């Protein structure tokens, strides 16, 4: 509240100046109370702020878009504060849903002030740093300001998309059962055929009926899906995305696919390739699921001269001959890099969030005249043809492409792609 003291000083000076100019003593008299009140501040000290702040967050790992309650408690470890105002600032990507981020009141020694509000969070890692406290001495207008550290972190992974089973294939499998298109004979319960008995076959696999029919010892053969090593690559190059919405959809899809593949017993690695390369090593189970969701929360798109193309993709980080799942809208120059990955023996599948499908995309500006005009339609048609050509060339190289209209269900797009195999 320095403004009041400044106003009083300014008024006193003006009145004194008027008194000097007009040689009228009344102005000096009127200036005296204001000057005296301003001078009071010199004999008093500003309130001593000895505050401790603590922040409590109801959920530090919520999905994007969900509501999180935040409670900040400030305890006064010093003398009574006649008027204290607290103001909390929200990091970018955190939006106030209800409650207030400000508080004002008097605070006795050892008493606490509580600030409670609810926020909704966007995908990302959000850090709360500190709280601003301003103590005001009401009569003398002396004020003391402090920044109270009360850090907290909210990691918001992308919203959960429904994702159907995606059966990938690979020439290298893990020795465990899992959800994939890679079937191996051995354990399991799916009947695959019969063959002649060989020493070492378990007796419980003998087919007694076939033996009675053909007079030879015959055993049943069973097979099962095997777990795979899958590497998910999230394309985070800014050039590939014409709007943030498309990137958010890609991140959500990558996280959903990782979830689904981990549920299927596979070992999954995650790589975000954009302004930087963020690598989550292969792993399985719930811990890996959490690690990938954290990596998805941290993913952000950007540019880096070294990562403009997929030429520097560190694909060797993935186990040899494993399955690689790329989530990318694809650029024209990506074809060669993808063919190189395929040539190294990796089985490649591309999930392509279609930039032409959603409103506001490259080919369509919703509601704009350009989209409705002949030139707009022609541009859209050309881009569509270019995408189809790229897709055709990838398919010829046995790289599967799943197109996903981000306005529609991911599960449905995968189901259609699986049916078309």
């Amino acid at each position, binding site marked *: 509240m320095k403004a009041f003291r400044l106003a009083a000083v300014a008024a006193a000076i003006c009145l004194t100046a008027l*008194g000097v100019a007009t040689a009228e*003593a009344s102005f000096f*008299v*009127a200036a005296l109370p204001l000057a005296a009140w301003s001078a009071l501040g*010199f004999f008093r000290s500003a309130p001593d702020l000895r505050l401790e702040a603590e922040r409590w967050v109801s959920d530090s790992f919520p999905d994007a878009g969900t509501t999180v309650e935040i409670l900040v408690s400030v305890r006064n470890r010093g003398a009574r504060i*006649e008027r*204290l105002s607290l103001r909390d600032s929200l990091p970018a990507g955190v939006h106030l849903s209800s409650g207030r981020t400000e508080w004002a009141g008097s605070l006795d020694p050892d008493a606490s002030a509580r600030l409670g509000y609810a926020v909704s969070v966007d995908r990302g890692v959000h850090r709360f740093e500190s709280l601003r406290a301003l103590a005001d001495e*009401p009569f003398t207008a002396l004020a003391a300001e402090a920044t109270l550290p009360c850090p907290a972190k909210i990691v918001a992974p992308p919203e959960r998309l429904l994702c159907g089973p995606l059966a990938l294939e690979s020439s290298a499998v893990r020795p465990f059962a899992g959800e994939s298109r890679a079937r191996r004979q051995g354990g399991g319960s799916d009947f695959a055929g019969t063959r002649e008995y060989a020493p070492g076959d378990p007796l419980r696999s003998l087919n007694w009926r076939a033996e009675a029919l053909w007079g030879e010892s015959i055993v049943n053969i069973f097979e099962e899906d095997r777990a795979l090593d899958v590497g998910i690559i999230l394309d985070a190059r800014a050039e590939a995305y014409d709007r943030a919405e498309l990137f958010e959809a890609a991140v959500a899809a990558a996280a959903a696919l990782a979830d689904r593949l981990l549920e299927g017993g596979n070992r999954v690695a995650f790589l975000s390739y954009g302004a930087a390369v963020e690598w989550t090593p292969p792993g399985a189970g719930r811990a890996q699921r959490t690690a990938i969701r954290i990596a998805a929360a941290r993913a952000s798109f950007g540019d880096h001269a070294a990562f403009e193309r997929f030429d520097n993709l560190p694909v060797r980080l993935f186990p040899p001959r494993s399955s690689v799942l790329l989530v990318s809208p694809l650029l024209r120059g990506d074809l060669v890099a993808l063919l190189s990955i395929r040539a190294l023996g990796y089985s490649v599948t591309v999930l392509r969030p279609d930039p032409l499908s959603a409103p506001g995309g490259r080919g369509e500006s919703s509601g704009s005249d350009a989209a409705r005009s002949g030139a707009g339609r022609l541009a859209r048609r050309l881009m569509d043809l270019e995408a189809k050509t790229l897709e055709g060339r990838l398919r010829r190289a046995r790289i599967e492409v799943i197109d996903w209209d981000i306005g529609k269900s991911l599960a449905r797009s995968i189901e259609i792609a699986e049916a078309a195999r």
Partner: protein
Amino acid sequence: MSLGAAIGLGALYSLPALLLLAARYALLCSGMDARARRRYAVSALVFGAFSIACCGLLAAFRGELALPVFWELLLPALAAGLLVRQIRRT
């Protein structure tokens, strides 16, 4: 000059300061508890009364004492305040 006229003039001269204090009270009262509000009100009343009395006294002397008070009392007090503050800081 009668006592009533002196008090009236004193109140008139104190009006800017009193308005300032009233404005502060209106602004801050929602963020203070009853104890703080009472303390502020008492301080403001004491200051206001003292201010009216002093201004009334100066008005009674037709303002002749105002300038000497301003230069010879308030400015030394301000200088002393500044000095005390500086000493406290060091």
